[in-house]
């Protein structure tokens, strides 16, 4: 098992290095970093000094090594557009995105599993069928239209919830949270619904089909034969076996939640990393783009690793030889 985890880690590090290389090449070759940093009055000598200070005269592999070293310490240079260190910008924006993404994942998983189990148990019920149809339509709708629709209903027509921003936030150290004030919580509702909806439908459909599959298995038939109550079979026996693939998918989806937060944050003018990235793309602010890329890749690789580990922990069959064979 340890060998298996070590191999996953090695693969993750490799992916991160490749992504770091792409990020570095962007930084190095898209536009001229020096021209982007100095003012128009800078003399040739100023420019040359800056080139040397930035280490742009050194050989390429050394520059890349320096880039990785700086990135490991969280240093991604200075934003071309805002003239502030990228790490500061990212740290300011991080709490908003993390709170949004975690709550969305929580919402998608709990509601998704509950609805999936319900749709599987009441297979041909009216409500179950309705839920399935709605989810099918939901999958084909672009995220930003769901967000706009929610804004129209709950902010414009009903005036129940705010349509943009985080509301009032409370600072705890450098972390700002919207979870402790009423306006902060209210502001979270619509973005969380928007961001979580797609994952919710995905998890729900997955739980339903897995559950239907498991309910046909032999051990369920034997449990019935032993006279165990139907409820106990459904929740103690069937659901438990359903959750293994669900954990995998849910874990992997957290990565895409962070990526899809780009769209949701733009719709709701949410001051998070995603909207920072979109602005960076519009203005070709390469250091911010590079930093965001490395950040997302790190999240993805970490999630993949965690999922791999959970998988082995949850499914005893994977321990030992078979996991290695994979």
């Amino acid at each position, binding site marked *: 098992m340890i060998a298996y985890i070590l191999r996953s880690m090695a693969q993750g590090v490799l992916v991160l290095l490749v992504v770091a290389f792409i990020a570095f090449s962007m930084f190095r070759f898209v536009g001229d970093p020096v021209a982007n940093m100095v003012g128009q009055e800078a003399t040739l000598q100023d420019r040359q000094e800056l080139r040397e200070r930035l280490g742009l005269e050194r050989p390429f592999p050394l520059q890349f090594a320096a880039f990785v070293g700086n990135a490991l310490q969280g240093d991604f240079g200075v934003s071309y557009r805002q003239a502030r260190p990228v790490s500061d910008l990212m740290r300011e924006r991080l709490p908003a995105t993390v709170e949004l993404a975690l709550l969305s994942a929580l919402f998608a998983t709990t509601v998704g599993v509950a609805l999936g189990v319900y749709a599987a148990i009441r297979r041909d019920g009216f409500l179950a069928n309705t839920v399935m149809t709605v989810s099918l339509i939901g999958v084909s709708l672009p995220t*930003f239209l769901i967000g706009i629709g929610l804004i129209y209903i709950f902010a414009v027509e009903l005036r129940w919830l705010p*349509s943009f921003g985080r509301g009032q936030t409370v600072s705890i150290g450098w972390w700002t949270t919207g979870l402790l004030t009423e306006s902060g919580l209210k502001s979270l509702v619509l973005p969380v619904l928007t961001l979580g909806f797609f994952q919710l439908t995905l998890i729900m459909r997955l739980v339903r089909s897995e559950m239907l599959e498991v309910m046909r298995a032999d051990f369920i038939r034997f449990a019935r034969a032993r006279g165990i109550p139907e409820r106990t079979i459904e929740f103690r026996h069937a659901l438990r076996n359903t959750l293994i693939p669900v954990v995998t998918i849910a874990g992997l989806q957290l990565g895409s939640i962070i990526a899809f937060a780009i769209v949701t944050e733009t719709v709701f003018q949410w001051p998070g990393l995603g909207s920072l990235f*979109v602005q960076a793309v*519009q203005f070709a602010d390469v250091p911010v783009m590079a930093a965001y890329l490395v950040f997302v*890749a790190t999240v993805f690789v970490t999630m993949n690793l965690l999922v791999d580990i959970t998988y082995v922990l949850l499914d005893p069959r994977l321990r030992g030889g078979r996991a290695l064979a994979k």
Partner: protein
Amino acid sequence: MPEETTDRARPVVDGAHGPTTGDVIATPAARLGVLARAWDSDIAYSFRRSPVTIVSATVALVMILAAVLAPWITPQDPFNPASLNMMDGFTPPGEPNAFTGNVYLLGTDPQGRDMYSAVLHGARVSLVVGLASVVFSLTVGVTLGLVAGYLGGRTEAVIMRVADVQLSFPAILIALLVFGIARGVIPPAQQEQATLFVLIFAIGISNWAQYARTVRATTLVEKSKVYVDAARLIGLKPFVVMVKHVLPNVTGPVLVIATINLALAIIEEATLSFLGAGMPPTQPSLGTLIRSGQQFLFSGEWWILFFPAMALILLALSINLLGDWLRDALNPKLR
């Protein structure tokens, strides 16, 4: 499976489906016209049997036709500022304008742009980007998948590894990144004309991996069949075997992915344009129209947002449903 993917008619099998095609059994297939044979094929049969598919095909066809014919069936050219009258701005759909008395079917935006014309022209841009990017990712993906599956070894390992890594990142992120890089590389003066091509490239490059994966898997299956051995045995070059013998047999799955991919590409383009990393307002796609319509949601001019959004949903949904149907129709196991 490859045999089922062509629409060659097999009247005897078809006749078994029901009494409507029963009389065909007596007719030799050779004497039927091309149209009649197509009508009688398995694909056409499963098409006739599914009302949802017929409806979505009709919707998709009407929208695509309307988009293609946009310059001839719309009252104004929304890209030409000279044809717009500011006095006509903010006209609600179907009502006469307070100043000019002009009536617009779907209303107008603040510049007096007719929304009906704007939506059709926008759908045209969306479709062009969608189709071109699908063709692009299809070409790249099929080529790499074919090469990986046929040659195997290190080439295969490298191609599939790259595909794996790319597939684990959402397409929208990759497309945004490519767009951002293009912004930095292309000089500002040429940016507006280049946007269309940048978008096609960005969306195309973010979707090739799925084709490569499927084609590689199918190629591996096909490669072990006798006809490939036979082709090799008569001394054909690997390139010829790949293109003339293996390629035609992997088209079925590719067609399914391409259809579903078209819907995804249209949504991806709309999302990029909505985020401001897509078509400029001077040459709007459906996504750009939605982006500029969003600000009027709070002041009650709902139609500026609503009609482009509906057009996008209808287009994506109908193509999606067609893709679902095609997948089931081409997969004999599900029949």
